[in-house]
Structure formats: structure tokens, C-alpha cells
């Protein structure tokens, strides 16, 4: 046991005592959070150059309203009220008479001005926008810009012109203008959980309002965190075992400890790395969310399940990867085996969205009870607010424990033979033979 511990210590320190580990510890959440975090961090980085937009109003009713609206907007949104720092561009609208004789020539002139940088965009408002009937081209509103599809001004125009036109139409219909807001009120359909009985008092509890955070973000964060930890703890075992074999370190180590102790040392070392990172992120996450007042969103009940499934996933995959690594003779062999070996984590990645949307469907249930996928899929189902039958995580847990024991046993047998077998690409038939004969 002391030897295994010494091997674990080396494996652990070899991973943790590197600059790459520290850098990864910081970068990994950023990479995994992807654009969301980047967008959050870069939210202040807005181009505050004023934007000039030419308006061609064929309806004759929108331009004046727009001029008033943009004046209001520029007064309130361009400068930060406290710091007086410019935080948004001012929109400058320039109302131009439409050229009815040669509209295409006018469009080209304006487009060329945009190309030259003299103008940001131009807006064409169809003549029949007040009552959109007849040919569509007569009531269309067209916004021409270099990157019109993702332009904030287009959104502002949408949200300004449409409510105004609706009010005009309501007035035209003879309805009291003061009732327009009431008529146009938009009522959101609220997402609510199920009503349940309080176990302590026996009273019926109010249904909880479910938010996107609970329904989507919490399960997804746990899911991706597990994916990331598996990639850090189990994935390198394929490569490092192959290296130890090809650099003949394995032979020296086998002179010191038994093959299964060698493999156990590597797998537990990888597990220790993952658990370290998991503790850092989870404790850091709890501390951070607690500090910014989002403590209610921390899924404390899920944390033990997270760790149980994480340990099993890494032991299961780590043993498999160490066994496969022992069968490889060069980095190319290891590269070829990486994808098939990682199917238990990659496959859940491909299907997590439908599972999250319908966690109680039979598709989700059966897949999450298939042991190689259980840790990741059962975790995401359990974390979803829908609630899955209480027996399922336990059955999944028993299944994955038995399967992990089986993989460790098979992996150990393959490892023992493979680690000393030189030459030739790893073949499934050989590995089966080694697993059976031991």
C-alpha cells in the first residue's frame, strides 16, 4: 500500500507542480464558459463612436417620431449617469427625402457613403407601414448597413417603430389612445415548479418559480465541470502510460511494484488531481456565489452525487485509458485510441441538450442507466429541476459501480501484459486475449 501511495504521490505532483496546471486551472473555466464569460468580461468594450443613419421615410409618419425618440435615447443612454463617461454611441438620424424617380441610384449613393465610412447605415420605410396591406414591398422597413443582421441600431429601431405604429393603428381604429398601453400589455408565461407537501409541517408548499439558472445553467455547469475534470484526471493516463512504456520506465517500476499497484497508483493519482481541481472550483464557486447574493442557486444536494459520480467516472475511464496506453507503442497509437476511449464522455456531450429538455423521457432514462454514460447523464438528469424518480440515481450508481469494478479488473489484466509487449499496433483481438488469459 505504501508503494501505491508513493506512486500516487509522484503522479499527483507531476501533474500539480507544473506551471501548465496553474494556467489550466485559471483558463479552463474561461474556455469552458466560452463566449458567455468572455461577453460578460468584455461587456464594457463598446464602440462609442457616434452612428449616423439616414432615414428615407416614404410613409411620412415615422421620421418625426424617430427624431424625437432618438433625442430622448441620446439624452439618457449615451453617458453613464454617475461617471458621465460615454458608454454608448449617440445615434444621429438624418432624414432625407426619398428619390422617387430613381430610388436605386439613391440607394447606391447611400451605400457608397457607408462603404467610405461617412455613414453608418440608412433606413427605408415603406409607404404603407401605417396599415400594412397589399404588396409587401410597400410596407417593409429595410435597414442597410455593413453588418445589419447584428447591429444594435436595428434592434433599437425595431423596438421603437413597432410600438409607435401599433399605437397609431389603435388610434385609427377609433380606440381611446389612453387605453393603448393596456391593450398592448405583454404578459409573460411564468415557469413554475410543482406544488409539494412540506415534510415537517405537512402543509402544501407554494410552487417554486423556476428560472433558467436552475433549469439550465446549474445542470450544465455541473455537467461541463465533470467533463473538464475527467479530461484533466483520466485523459492524460493514456499518454503517460504509453510514455512510461516506450521510455522503459514501466520496466523499472515493475521491478518495484506489482502491475496492478502500478496501474492503481496512476489512476488514483489522476483522481487526486481531479478532486483537487473539483474542490478548488466548487469551494471557490460557493464562496463567489455566496458573496454576490446568489447562494440560493447553489445546488448543495447535488454536490455529494457530483463527487460520487466523478470518482467512479475517473476510476472507470482511468483504468480503461491506462490499459489502452499500455497497449500502445508510439504516440500515434495513443492518438488513434483517444476518441474511442473517450466515448463515455463525448457521447453524453452530444446528447445532453435533449436529455436536459426531457430528463424523464424513456430515452434519457435508459441512456442514463447504461453504465458507461451513467455518471454524466444521471448527473445532469438529477440536477435538472424536473425531478427524476428517486430510485434511478441509486440503480445507476450500483450499475456504474459494478461496471467500474469490471473495467478495473479487465484493465489490470490488459495492463499487466501490454506494458511489457513491444512492437505492433494495439489490436482489439490482442487486448481481448490478454484480458482473458491475464
Amino acid at each position: 500500500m505504501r508503494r501505491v501511495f508513493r506512486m500516487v504521490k509522484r503522479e499527483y505532483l507531476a501533474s500539480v507542480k507544473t506551471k501548465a496546471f496553474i494556467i489550466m486551472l485559471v483558463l479552463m473555466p474561461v474556455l469552458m464558459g466560452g463566449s458567455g464569460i468572455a461577453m460578460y468580461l468584455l461587456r464594457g468594450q463598446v464602440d462609442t463612436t457616434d452612428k449616423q443613419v439616414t432615414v428615407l421615410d416614404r410613409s411620412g409618419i415615422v421620421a418625426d417620431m424617430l427624431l424625437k425618440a432618438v433625442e430622448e435615447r441620446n439624452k439618457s443612454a449615451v453617458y453613464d449617469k454617475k461617471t458621465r463617461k460615454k458608454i454608448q454611441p449617440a445615434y444621429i438620424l438624418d432624414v432625407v427625402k426619398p428619390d422617387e424617380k430613381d430610388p436605386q441610384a439613391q440607394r447606391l449613393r447611400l451605400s457608397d457613403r457607408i462603404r467610405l465610412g461617412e455613414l453608418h447605415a440608412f433606413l427605408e420605410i415603406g409607404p404603407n407601414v401605417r396599415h400594412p396591406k397589399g404588396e409587401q414591398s410597400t410596407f417593409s422597413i429595410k435597414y442597410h448597413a455593413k453588418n445589419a443582421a447584428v447591429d444594435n441600431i436595428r434592434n433599437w429601431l425595431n423596438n421603437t417603430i413597432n410600438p409607435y405604429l401599433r399605437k397609431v393603428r389603435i388610434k385609427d381604429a377609433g380606440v381611446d389612445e389612453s387605453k393603448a398601453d393596456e391593450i398592448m400589455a405583454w404578459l409573460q408565461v411564468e415557469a413554475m415548479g410543482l406544488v409539494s407537501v412540506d415534510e415537517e409541517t405537512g402543509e402544501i408548499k407554494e410552487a417554486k418559480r423556476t428560472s433558467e439558472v436552475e433549469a439550465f445553467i446549474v445542470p450544465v455547469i455541473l455537467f461541463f465541470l465533470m467533463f473538464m475534470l475527467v479530461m484533466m484526471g483520466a485523459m492524460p493516463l493514456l499518454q503517460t502510460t504509453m510514455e512510461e512504456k516506450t521510455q522503459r520506465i514501466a520496466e523499472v517500476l515493475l521491478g518495484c511494484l506489482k502491475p496492478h499497484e502500478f496501474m492503481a497508483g496512476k489512476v488514483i493519482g489522476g483522481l487526486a488531481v481531479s478532486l483537487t481541481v473539483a474542490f478548488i472550483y466548487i469551494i471557490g464557486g460557493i464562496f463567489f456565489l455566496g458573496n454576490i447574493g446568489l447562494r440560493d442557486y447553489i445546488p448543495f444536494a447535488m454536490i455529494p452525487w457530483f463527487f460520487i459520480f466523478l470518482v467512479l467516472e475517473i476510476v472507470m475511464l482511468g483504468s480503461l485509458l491506462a490499459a489502452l496506453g499500455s497497449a500502445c507503442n508510439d504516440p500515434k497509437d495513443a492518438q488513434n485510441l483517444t476518441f474511442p476511449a473517450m466515448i463515455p464522455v463525448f457521447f453524453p456531450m452530444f446528447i445532453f441538450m435533449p436529455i436536459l429538455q426531457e430528463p424523464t423521457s424513456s430515452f434519457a432514462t435508459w441512456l442514463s442507466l447504461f453504465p458507461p454514460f451513467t455518471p454524466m447523464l444521471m448527473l445532469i438528469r438529477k440536477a435538472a429541476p424536473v425531478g427524476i424518480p428517486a430510485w434511478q440515481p441509486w440503480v445507476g450508481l450500483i450499475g456504474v459501480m459494478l461496471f467500474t469494478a469490471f473495467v478495473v479488473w479487465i484493465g489490470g489484466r490488459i495492463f499487466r501484459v501490454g506494458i511489457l509487449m513491444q512492437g505492433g499496433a494495439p489490436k482489439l483481438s490482442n487486448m481481448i486475449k490478454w484480458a482473458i488469459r491475464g
Partner: protein
Amino acid sequence: MNVVEIENITKTFGALKAVDDLSLNVPQGSIYGFIGPNGSGKTTTLRMIMNIIYPDSGKIRIFDKEMRGTASERIGYLPEERGMYKKMKVRELLRFYGELKSGRKVNKEVDYWLDKLDLSDWADKKIETLSKGMGQKVQFISTVVSQPELIILDEPFTGLDPVNVETIKNAVLELRTQGATVIFSTHDMNVAENMCDFIFMIFKGKKVLDGTLVSIQDKYGSDTLRVRTEGGISTLKNLDGVEKIADFGQLQELRIAPDNDHQKILSEIMSRTRVYSFELAKPTLYDIFLRIAGPEAKEETDA
């Protein structure tokens, strides 16, 4: 008492019989040299003694115990190809291997050996910065640092310069003096002759020699005539009763065919040229090796 007792072991890899019905006893406190051409089964035998691979049949007893499936802290093993973590520092690696083997701290022993093999200045350098010879010395230390009772060295002198060969030789002899039993394989016949109490030769998986140098040489008798002459090799051709001549430039070794009189051959040489010196000797281990595994043996086998 024998430290290693090997009884009729056989090991097959696919169609190749790497070791064939081999038996061997290694007495405690001895230095046992394994010789044999490349691919003859030396490393396989050493790995079986180490329990890294198991024989298909037969028994191996180490310290009077069958040890299948176990790695013993009482045995130190230096494999043929050196295996060290390149990114680890020398001292760190030696402590790791030593602790892994013995299950205890070996800091003192590591410092002792680093000093002894003149590697103290390199203790905090990474393995990847060492020269081949230094790497080999580090690997040697990793084998002996846990103070094993049985030390198995697979070609410990390969790639070392003469100074380092002497250093490792002296270290091995010192370990033996302290009571360790040493088994090593080598291609250097001089080292085997000078260091080993017993020599074992394996050829094509079978044991072909086993015993002390004297007992091995006795089997072949005094059939070698070493001469230094004025005329050199050119005057020694076509001598009756000579099977083979080995030319070493200034010295020639003549192997006398069975039932031939060396006096008669010497007279014939003296009639041809001036003889500066002559010696009737037993064949060297080098010569015996070639007789068993060299081209002439192959010709005999083919014939």
C-alpha cells in the same frame, strides 16, 4: 545457500521459444555473469527472475520462495534499456525509486551514492540534461539505493567509458563484499572473466555453459597456442594440426586440433620464422563464446 534456483523453465513468445528448459542455481554472495549473443534469452531469463514475466513452465525460487506475482524489495533491477522520468531531477528520481522499492525514506543512501559515483553536482539537474553515461550511473544508483540483497543488472556497462566502467565495477564488487548477490548480463568477455565467480551462457534459449571460468576452460583443455613471431600472420598459414588462427596484429592465437602435438606445430613455426614468445593456454571466454555462437558454430550447425 542458493539465492536463485531456477528449475526447468521455458518461455515462449508466439512461435519463438525464448528460454528452453533452463535450470540454474545462483549461490548467495556470488557474482554471476550471464553471457550470450543478442536475442539468446538473457533478458527474458532476468525478467523471469524479477517476476516481471512468468515462465510457461518450470519453477523459480528466490530466497527459497516461489514469488509469482510479487515484486520484492529484496531485489534490485537495472533493465537493459534505461527508464527514467526525463522531467524529474536526479535526487528526486532516486528518492522516488528508492522509496517505491523499499517503502522507506532513502535520503541518506541517495546522497551517499551520488557522492560515490561523482554525481553530487548533478543532483538538482533534470534527467534530460544528463549525458548517456551519467544517466546510466543514475539508473545504477536507483537499482542499489534501496540496499537489495539480490542485484540484477542487465548489461550495466554498455555505453560507458572506461573510467565509468571501472567505477561501476568497483561499486558492484563493494556491494558483493557487503553481502549482496549480483547477477549481470554482459557482452564484455573481459569483464565477465575478471569479475564473475560463475559464468552462465545461454544460446538460442538453452544453457550452453554454466560454472566457474576455470571449470569452463577445463572443458576445452589447453588447446590454444599464443605466439609472437617476426613474420606475423603471413608465416603461420597452412600449418598442419591448426584448426583456426585468430590474428591480433602483434599476437596470433592458434587453436590446435584434437590429438595434435603442439610441440610439433611450434617446431614447424620456428622453422619458418623467428619466434619471440609463445604460450600454451586455455581458450579465453571470448574464444569460447565465438566457438559456441560465432560463424564457425553456425557453419557446423548448418552442415
